[in-house]
């Protein structure tokens, strides 16, 4: 009977909406709304202490894009950090995944140790490194002293501070790469490797011509995800150097934060955030396409 079918359709719809209602509410209030506010703020002269919110169009954007600090320090820092960190973690993670791919006694223990960094907060990792690289009592300088090398003021010079940050990031994320690459390795079929054994392929040739091509899809995904994350690094830089000395180690996320909450120029901070968001999106798409083409060519 036509009468009966109508309420049933409504009931299904009501159920569907009820299922997503809480998620939708939270999403709107705490993600969509902030996005809109941020976008709005970026076009206004908005200071945290000042109730005035005049519309100034693209002035904030222009400021950021012309800011010497941003162009010559922050952006190169951020990209350089990203490249160095992702590259190092990838290679190291791949090596570890290859090592862990065989069965050996105590493998479980080794795996647990290597996965240790995954549960450590970036802030804590930064603290650990900061302590180890302390210029007076840090273990690194102590060991260097034993070998007669002069003490280095690690955290107060730009490049050495960067090295410490890089070390922290690599320490934190290599296990992530290793875990995912290991899963990838273990999902590879064994027959091509047996055929390669019969074909007298050396360990290196097997790796280069068989393992690596088959791993490429996994590598691409890992690299893109990690690159996007590395671009947004905040915790480590904040804890190790605070962006210093004199903003020399500032990366993009710190720049936006500093503009908004230290210079109290929320408009400019939001503009910086939006610019950064656009950079990430464009860069991620380009990277993904580039890497995928690399994967396709090899196919």
């Amino acid at each position: 009977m036509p009468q009966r079918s109508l309420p049933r359709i409504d009931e299904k719809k009501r159920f569907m909406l009820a299922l997503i209602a809480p998620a939708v509410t939270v999403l709107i209030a705490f993600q969509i709304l902030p996005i809109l506010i941020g976008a709005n703020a970026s076009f206004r002269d908005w200071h945290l202490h000042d109730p005035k919110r005049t519309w100034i169009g693209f002035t904030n954007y222009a400021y950021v894009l012309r800011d010497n600090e941003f162009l010559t320090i922050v952006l190169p820092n951020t990209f350089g950090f990203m490249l160095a960190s992702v590259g190092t973690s990838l290679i190291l993670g791949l090596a570890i995944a290859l090592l862990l791919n065989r069965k050996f006694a105590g493998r479980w223990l080794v795996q647990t140790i290597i996965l240790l960094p995954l549960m450590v907060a970036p802030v804590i990792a930064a603290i650990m490194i900061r302590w180890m690289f302390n210029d007076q009592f840090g273990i690194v300088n102590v060991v260097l002293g034993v070998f007669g090398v002069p003490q280095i003021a690690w955290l107060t010079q730009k490049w050495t501070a960067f090295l410490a940050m890089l070390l922290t990031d690599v320490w934190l994320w290599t296990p992530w790469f290793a875990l995912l690459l290991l899963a990838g390795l273990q999902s590879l079929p064994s027959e091509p490797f047996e055929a390669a054994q019969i074909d007298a392929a050396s360990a290196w040739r097997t790796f280069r011509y068989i393992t690596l091509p088959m791993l490429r899809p996994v590598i691409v995904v890992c690299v893109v995800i990690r690159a996007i994350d590395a671009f947004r690094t905040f915790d480590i830089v904040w804890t190790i150097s605070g962006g210093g000395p004199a903003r020399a180690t500032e990366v993009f996320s710190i720049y936006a934060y500093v503009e908004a909450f230290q210079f109290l120029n929320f408009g400019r901070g939001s503009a910086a955030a939006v610019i950064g968001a656009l950079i990430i999106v464009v860069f991620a798409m380009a990277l993904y396409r580039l890497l995928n083409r690399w994967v396709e060519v090899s196919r």
Partner: protein
Amino acid sequence: MSAVDALPAIASRNRFFDALAPGGRRALFVLGIIGVCLLFAFPVFWLVLTSLRPGYAVYYVHRGTDFTLDNFHEVLSQEIVLRALWNSLAISTLATVLSLGVTVTSGYMLSRFRGPIPNLWFSAIYVFRCVPYVSWVLPLYFVTRALGIFDTYWGLLLPHVAVHICFFSWIMKGFFDGIDPSMEYAAMIDGCSRWGAFLRVALPAAIPGLTALAILCWLYTWNEFLFALILTAQKTPILTVVMAQFVHELGMEWHLMSATAVLSLGPALIVTIFGQKYVIRGLKI
């Protein structure tokens, strides 16, 4: 093929790895493993060691033999640390429960239904997952202020839940896609409502995946820094923020610093050790 017949069947090797006798290869392998383990365990070990040395011994952590728990006593006697510890525990647990609760129904809906509403929601999730959260982190400050929840539990919980919505809904959908819907149909034929079928049939089947996700979510929230920094002030100290403050303020008191850090590592370590097998089982790694 006569040219090929002239080839020696056993090829010559000058490659490094293959030139090594099996013993040499094994030695290199073992060295590699040990080196890697040292690299990853050392910073943690060093931190724990420092936290157990008394204040004056900070100058020579690697030498000396006196150990003490005084650092922990001192750190725990500070009210801010105790409050931060409690807050972090509470927030991590509550955020996990809330995130899972809100997203499990969302993921279920995406998995079980087709049509304009699910499609719209799926697209929304996909789009907003790709929006980098730098662009909405700063304004959260204003939203929470406007709603009067700044520097309170809700002010931190709801944004955390928001971050998880897109990502978790997608993962939950995956979980439910892997569960046969016939059981729910059977339940509905047997008299269950849709909600009842979800609650009594689908949800229990998804528990392994939910447990895995819960553990990962808990760890993530426990370790989170940026939101805590922006959305809390004096009333709701959070452990990660407190630690970062200590670094910039305490200067030389590394014995206290490391004790605080070890305190923060403790729960994470416990959760990881006990949760590891659930994570592996639930995500079928």
